[in-house]
């Protein structure tokens, strides 16, 4: 099922055939939605028996959802055919979080879902990668996040300052361009000092587009520390 970003512009190519032996001038409307909203119109001529692809530049609906697609064709002001596409069009933001990133002690580790930090002394920055899987820019992307203990009853006195448990906007609205690499978003929560008590934390992330939340995601991790590692061990450990 084709999926497009809201308000993005795409081209529909409709292959049409005139089954008659004489040529006619036609006007075709490409409609979307149950209300048959006209999204694009094309005028064309088909000779007798001719098969021709006809392009429609369609500005997609601004509201997410699933839209049936219809073609209505007139000749001389009279409707000569109405057709329903076999596939609906889905209007959605094709935005996803593809990595959570953690930078600790100057090293970056990717793909940290379900990863424990129990052997590391300090986490300095957290972040993730946003990827636009569509084909057009997504404007007005904003990101909010918060970190909170999974079990609020556990002691927090080691943390100074205490974690901010309210959603915090960590990036000004930006435009996310399509592409495999995506955009890394970092935020500077800091866990100062040595944490000797294992505590499970949850990182909540909300992605909004033009102020409307489109993704909520979370990552749980255990943050604690053991005594510093021997000097001979360095680099990125394996898990």
């Amino acid at each position: 099922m084709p999926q497009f970003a809201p308000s993005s512009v795409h081209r529909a190519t409709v292959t049409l055939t005139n089954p008659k032996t004489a040529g006619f001038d036609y006007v075709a409307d490409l409609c979307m939605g149950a209300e048959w909203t006209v999204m694009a119109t094309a005028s064309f001529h088909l000779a007798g028996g001719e098969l021709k692809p006809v392009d429609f530049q369609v500005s997609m609906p601004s509201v997410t959802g699933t839209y049936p697609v219809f073609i209505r064709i007139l000749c001389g002001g009279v409707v000569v055919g109405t057709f329903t596409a076999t596939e609906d069009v889905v209007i959605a933001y094709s935005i996803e979080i593809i990595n959570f990133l953690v930078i600790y002690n100057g090293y970056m580790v990717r793909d940290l879902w379900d990863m424990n930090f129990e052997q590391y002394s300090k986490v300095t920055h957290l972040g993730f990668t946003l990827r636009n899987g569509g084909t057009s820019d997504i404007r007005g992307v904003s990101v909010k996040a918060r970190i909170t203990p999974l079990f609020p009853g556990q002691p927090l006195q080691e943390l100074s300052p205490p974690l901010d448990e309210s959603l915090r906007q960590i990036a000004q609205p930006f435009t996310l361009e399509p592409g495999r690499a995506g955009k890394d978003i970092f935020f500077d929560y800091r866990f100062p000092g040595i944490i000797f008590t294992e505590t499970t934390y949850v990182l909540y992330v909300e992605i909004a587009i033009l102020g409307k939340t489109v993704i909520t995601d979370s990552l749980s991790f255990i943050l604690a520390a053991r005594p510093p590692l021997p000097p001979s061990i360095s680099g990125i450990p394996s898990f």
Partner: protein
Amino acid sequence: MKEMELKMNKLSGSEDEVRIEKMTMEDPSFESETVHVAHALFTNPKTSSFDYTAELYLGKVVGNKVSTSGAINFTILAGGSKSVDFSVNMPVLTIPDDAFHVYLEVKHLGTLLITFVATEDVAVYIIPAIKVTQITWD
């Protein structure tokens, strides 16, 4: 559909061997490639029975048989009359609409006796249509 009379004028030949009393058909406006029947009432003015072959065709000029009923054989007794049906498939068009003269030839043993032409042409048209075979998105 209501039948209407189609007046036929003699184009060539003689009415000594055969006469057309009446010609009827549907409203002379037809969709291309549809079959319609014209009914002709002939009389034999001779004093003996006569064998005839008649052909009704649509065309732009005499002899231009764009669409024809084919030869219809029939016999009319001396002084008698006979109604003959001519079934014609309306022409295939390459333009949305066109008009054709209606000709009627009557022969006897291969000899052309008379040719009639209708005073009114037949109008033929195509109802537009279209098919959608595929929709792709870029």
